[in-house]
């Protein structure tokens, strides 16, 4: 066997100076040659630990081996048996914590770039035309999927593949959930999400937009009046958190959800061609240091900010953003203010933001999360001049569905209670998964929950049919 190359193929990137001026995708993708070479680094382990690292159990060993031989069509076919959204996963999964973290090559060298290979085969398929579907024997049972985000799309696809009649109810006017309103175009082009949704439609999944379950229809009416035999709840994370500091309602203070929704879903970056406006001014402070904060700060640069800053009360070591996102932000000129805690937003007489008052912090003893707790340094207050402030602090659960659905239980944080293995809620026939259950987490974990729930829903419906 040839010697394993130590280093993985670098991902070709759009030049940082160019990319801050537009929304084009930053990572350009491997060529076929690069992909095959990278795939050939795989050791084809007897026990592919990488697959255990994946929340949806992508058949890494098989798809990589086929790709290594240049059999791209067979590779993506094998992938598709398990994962319905590979072009998305290849881009937004934290592979470094999942499959790639378990890669044996990674013990001595850099792990095989599984995520980039996943993206490659999926992009190849989209560019070369999707394979036609095989005929699926149809079942009569109807399943309602609430929310067209990663959990809902996965659940819907898996159930449709089993022949169930699936309707996805979406509150917004487009499918994709956070893939559409949250993750920016430069990290996940919307045409990719649209292509995957179209593919689900071709499988027979029906999408109904502008339906806010809990308001437009209740879960009771879905099951009692509209004839759905089971329901999957994948409604996502919920209400954006604010800090509770003075000045948060000045004009120019946004949640990252609002800011990103304006840009991504409503295309405010193309105003006035699109009607939804967005303004951040010249100096933007983004509070937080997760992936959403990185998306927000990098988006700010692309809509005209001259100075885009991260403000975080801990340090680089405690931030939750992926390394890759952080590095891209650094390349693009984002300024990082570590150990800095906002205490007040300053505004002018017209109610517009003019500054952010902060305190410097230092790290103290570890807190309950195991991270060293930041403590304020006395007398260190200072004012940062800013035109807008974006809060990327996470979310709290959305109460609408709980308020309107008898028999659904929530935990002390307000998240839905569901069996982690099956997604079964406290109400028979009602399953749930994704951020609505776990609180804000990753796309791939939501997909994993959708996949498990689809399996459990099928079992539930088959048992019900036997007893009927």
């Amino acid at each position, binding site marked *: 066997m040839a010697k394993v190359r130590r280093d993985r193929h670098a991902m070709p990137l759009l030049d940082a100076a160019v990319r801050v001026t537009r929304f084009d995708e930053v990572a350009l993708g491997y060529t076929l040659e690069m992909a095959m070479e990278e795939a050939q680094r795989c050791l084809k382990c007897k026990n592919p630990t990488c697959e255990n690292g994946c929340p949806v159990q992508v058949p890494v060993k098989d798809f990589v081996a086929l790709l290594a031989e240049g059999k791209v069509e067979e590779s993506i076919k094998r992938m598709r048996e398990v994962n319905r959204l590979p072009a998305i996963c290849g881009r937004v999964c934290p592979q470094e914590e999942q499959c790639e973290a378990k890669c044996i090559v990674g013990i001595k060298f850099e792990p095989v770039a599984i995520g980039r290979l996943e993206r490659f085969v999926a992009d190849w398929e989209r560019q070369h035309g999707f394979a036609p579907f095989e005929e699926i024997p149809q079942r009569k049972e109807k399943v309602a999927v609430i929310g067209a985000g990663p959990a809902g799309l996965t659940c819907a696809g898996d159930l449709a593949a089993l022949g169930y009649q699936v309707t996805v109810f979406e509150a917004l006017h487009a499918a994709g959930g956070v893939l559409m309103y949250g993750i920016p175009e430069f990290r996940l082009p919307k045409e990719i999400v649209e292509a995957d949704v179209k593919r689900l439609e071709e499988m027979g999944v029906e999408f109904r937009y502008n339906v806010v379950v809990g308001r437009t229809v209740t879960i009771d009416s879905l099951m009692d009046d509209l004839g759905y035999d089971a329901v999957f709840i994948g409604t996502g994370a919920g209400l954006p958190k604010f800090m509770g500091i003075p000045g948060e*309602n000045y004009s120019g203070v*946004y949640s990252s959800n609002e800011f990103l929704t304006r840009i991504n879903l409503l295309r405010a970056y193309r*105003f006035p061609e699109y009607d*939804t406006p967005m303004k951040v001014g010249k100096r933007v402070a983004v509070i937080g240091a997760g992936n959403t904060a990185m998306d927000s700060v990098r988006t700010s640069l692309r809509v005209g900010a001259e100075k885009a800053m991260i403000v975080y009360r801990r340090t680089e070591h405690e931030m939750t953003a992926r390394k890759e996102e952080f590095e891209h932000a650094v390349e693009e000129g984002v300024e990082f203010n570590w150990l800095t805690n906002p205490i007040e937003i300053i505004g002018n007489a017209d109610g517009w933001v003019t500054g952010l008052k902060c305190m410097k912090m230092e790290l103290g003893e570890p807190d309950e999360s195991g991270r060293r707790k930041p403590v304020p340094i006395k007398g260190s207050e200072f004012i940062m001049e800013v035109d807008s402030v974006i809060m990327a602090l996470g979310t709290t659960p959305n109460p609408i569905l709980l308020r309107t659905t008898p028999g659904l239980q929530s935990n002390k944080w307000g998240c839905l209670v569901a069996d982690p293995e099956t997604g079964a809620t406290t109400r028979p026939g009602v399953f749930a998964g994704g951020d609505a259950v776990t609180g804000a987490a990753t796309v791939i974990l939501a997909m994993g929950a959708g996949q498990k729930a689809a399996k459990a829903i099928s079992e539930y419906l088959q048992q019900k049919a036997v007893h009927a």
Partner: protein
Amino acid sequence: MYRILKMRQLTPVTRLYVIDAPLVARSAQPGQFIILRVGATGERIPITITDFDREAGTVTIVVQEVGKTTKWLAQLGEGDYIQDFAGPLGQPVELPERGRVALIGGGFGTGAILTIAKALHGRPGITVDAIVGARTQELLILADEVAANVDRFLPCTDDGSFGTKGFVTAVLHDQIKAEKGYELVIAVGPMPMMKAVADVTRPYAIYTLASMDPIMLDGTGMCGACRVKVGNENKFACVDGPCFDAHKVDFLEVSRRTKMYKAEEKIALDRFVEHECQCKSAGNR
């Protein structure tokens, strides 16, 4: 796509639309709103529900032309389609079983009190006064419909062309003094009017609700753009509202926030009007 079944011109700048939206009609309650998007490049705007008919599957809204989106909508007529129409959104307004209620409607806000008047109409223990105002008679909308659903209809106009000459607040104040007050006052209309109503009822400690229409995107709690300070708390109008205790609402802040995009709104409107003119002149050639 949602079909416009009926369109009625109420004033030169206000139109009533009856929209085919069976699922929304089935669940709609007084006090709730919808979010619509006229076309694929459009913005999402919240509009209070004026009326609904569960059997016919229709929802009625009243829209005043103020900016691009509403002017765009004004170009559509019966048989045309609206791209998106999501609802009903927000919490239904909690209505009492007995007592005296005053419904205050200002400008096109009068449209929104109709659904509340209808819900209260016929409740045995309830007496409802509607105090509605406009600049002049021709701008007073849905007078017959509201009048038919309340015990007393008390219109007023700034110029005295119809009903009492003066503002709704003066009529409200007179009624409070003459009739020993109300158990509940609900105000729907421009922000300054709702604030003025709150100022009138505050000394009498009359429970007063104001229907907020801040900037919104999704209308389901996701974006947080619609936050309104009520007392010392931030509330999301789409999840907890749109009706809030008017004595606790920070009207100054809400008014400021709704004007956040004034400059951009003007750009969008000017661009639209200019484009419209070009189309018209092209058509005349």
